[in-house]
C-alpha cells in the first residue's frame, strides 16, 4: 500500500512518472501478472501490459516503436528457459534481447530501460518486485531523451 501512495503523491506533485511498455507472454508472465492481481498484490501502476503469445513474438520493431512513441522503458516477460510453450521462443527472445540491448545503447538509450525477465505463471510476487524495481530505476534515470527530429509519418509496424 505504501508504494501506491508514494506513486500517487509523486504524480500529484507533477513529478516524472515513467511509462513502461511490458510485453508479457501468454503462458507464463501474463498469468503471473493475473495471479498478482487475483492475489491483490499492489505494485507501481506505470506499466502498460501487452499480451503476446510468446516472448519470441516480440519483434525488435515493437520495442523500438515503443521507445520512439514515448515509452521510458520496455519490459519483456517470458517463460523460464526450457519452459517455452513453443520449445524455442524464449531462446530466440534472449538472443535478440542481448543484441538489441547493445544496439539501443549505441543509440543513447540506457541499459536499465530495456529488460527481459523470466517469470513463470506461479511467480506473481516476482511480477511485483520486477515492475517496482524497474519503475524505480527508470524514474531515477528520468524521461527518455526523446528528440523527435523529424515529423515522422505514422506508420503501422507490420511484421512479416
Amino acid at each position: 500500500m505504501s508504494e501506491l501512495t508514494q506513486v500517487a503523491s509523486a504524480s500529484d506533485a507533477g513529478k516524472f512518472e515513467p511509462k513502461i511498455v511490458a510485453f508479457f507472454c501468454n503462458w507464463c508472465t501474463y498469468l503471473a501478472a493475473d495471479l498478482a492481481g487475483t492475489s491483490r498484490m499492489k505494485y507501481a501502476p506505470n506499466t502498460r501490459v501487452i499480451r503476446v503469445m510468446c516472448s519470441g513474438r516480440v519483434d525488435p520493431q515493437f520495442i523500438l516503436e515503443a521507445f520512439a512513441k514515448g515509452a521510458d522503458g520496455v519490459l519483456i516477460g517470458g517463460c523460464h528457459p526450457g519452459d517455452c510453450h513453443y520449445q524455442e521462443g524464449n531462446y530466440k527472445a534472449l538472443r535478440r534481447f542481448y543484441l538489441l540491448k547493445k544496439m539501443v545503447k549505441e543509440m543513447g538509450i540506457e541499459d536499465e530501460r530495456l529488460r527481459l525477465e523470466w517469470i513463470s505463471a506461479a511467480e506473481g510476487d516476482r511480477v511485483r518486485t520486477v515492475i517496482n524495481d524497474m519503475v524505480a530505476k527508470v524514474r531515477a534515470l528520468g524521461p527518455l531523451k526523446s528528440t523527435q527530429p523529424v515529423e515522422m509519418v505514422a506508420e503501422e509496424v507490420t511484421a512479416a
Partner: protein
Amino acid sequence: MSEKPKVAFYWCASCGGCEEAVVDLAESILDVAGAIDIVLWPVALDFKYKDVKALADGAIVATFLNGAIRNTEQEEMAHLLRRKSQYLIAFGACAQLGGIPGLANLWDRKSIFQRVYSEGPTTLNPASVLPETSHKDNGRTVTLPGFHDTVKTLEQVVDVDYFVPGCPPTPDLLKQAVGALLSGQLPPKGSVLAPDRALCDECPRKDTKPEKLSIEEFKRPHQVLIDHEKCLLAQDLLCMGPATRGSCGALCIQGNMPCTGCFGPTSRVRDFGAKALSAMASLVAARDDDAVVKAMESIPDPVGTFYRYSLPASLLVRKRTEETSDVR
C-alpha cells in the same frame, strides 16, 4: 527545343556512386539520352539552378535525386525539384533510407564539427575556426548552407513518388525505372521500383543454405577463407540476405562478400535494422545469458552493421542526445 520529356538528375549528401550507375548504363545511355531531354545533371552537364527555377512548375517529367538531406541547400533543392517535377524519385540508398551519410545521426552538428575541424589527426586549426552560414570579410559577406543536426531521407523532407534502392542502384534498375516512366506503366505511388522479395530467394548459393542454421559466433570476412559456393551464413558470415530486398543480381555474393543490406527492406518491414538484427540474432546457437552475450561480442557495432544504410529511416531516427535542436 525538342518535345522530349524533361528529366533531371541531382545529388545531395552522397558519394557520387549513384551517378556512376547512370554512367554505367554504358551504350544504353545513348537510348536513354535519345529519349529524354536532360535539364539538370550537376555531375556531368553545366546547367545552373536558375535554369531550373525558370522552368514552369511540373515541367520536368521526372527527377532522379540521389543522396540524403544533410544541409539547407540540399533541402532547398529538394523542394525546388519537387515543385518542378511530375515525378520525384528517390534514387539510391541515401535518398531512400539515409544511406552511409545517415550514420552521422549517431552524432550531431556540434560533435561532427568538433571532430572534423579540431580533433582530426591531420587537422591544424588553432583558432578553432568553424563553418558559419554567413561571414564578413573586408566588407564582403560570404555564405554557406546551414548544416543540420540530423540527416534525413528525401521522404522526410518532401513528397516522394518512387524509390529506387541500392548503393548504388544497378543500371538495370535505372533502365527499368526510366522505361516505366516513359511508357507510363507505373506501380502505385510510394512503391519501391524493384521486386519485393528477399535476396536469399535469388541467391546463386540458395541450395547450399542449410535447413537450420546455428552460429556459435559471427566471423568477419577477413577472418575466414571464404568458400566460393557455400551459403555465407553457413560459413558464419553475417550476410543480410534474409532481410534484404533482392534484385541487385547478388553482386556482392558473386564477389564472395556477404550482403550488407544496401537494397533495404521488403515492403512488409518498417525498420530494416531491427528486422535484420532479429534475423541474425535468431541464428545464434547459444542458450544461456553468458554464452549469448559472448556470441554477440562478434558483432562489435550493431548500429553500423544493421543500420549501415538506413539509420535516418529507422524508428529511432537518431541517437538520443541532450541538446539536439536540429537547426543550422
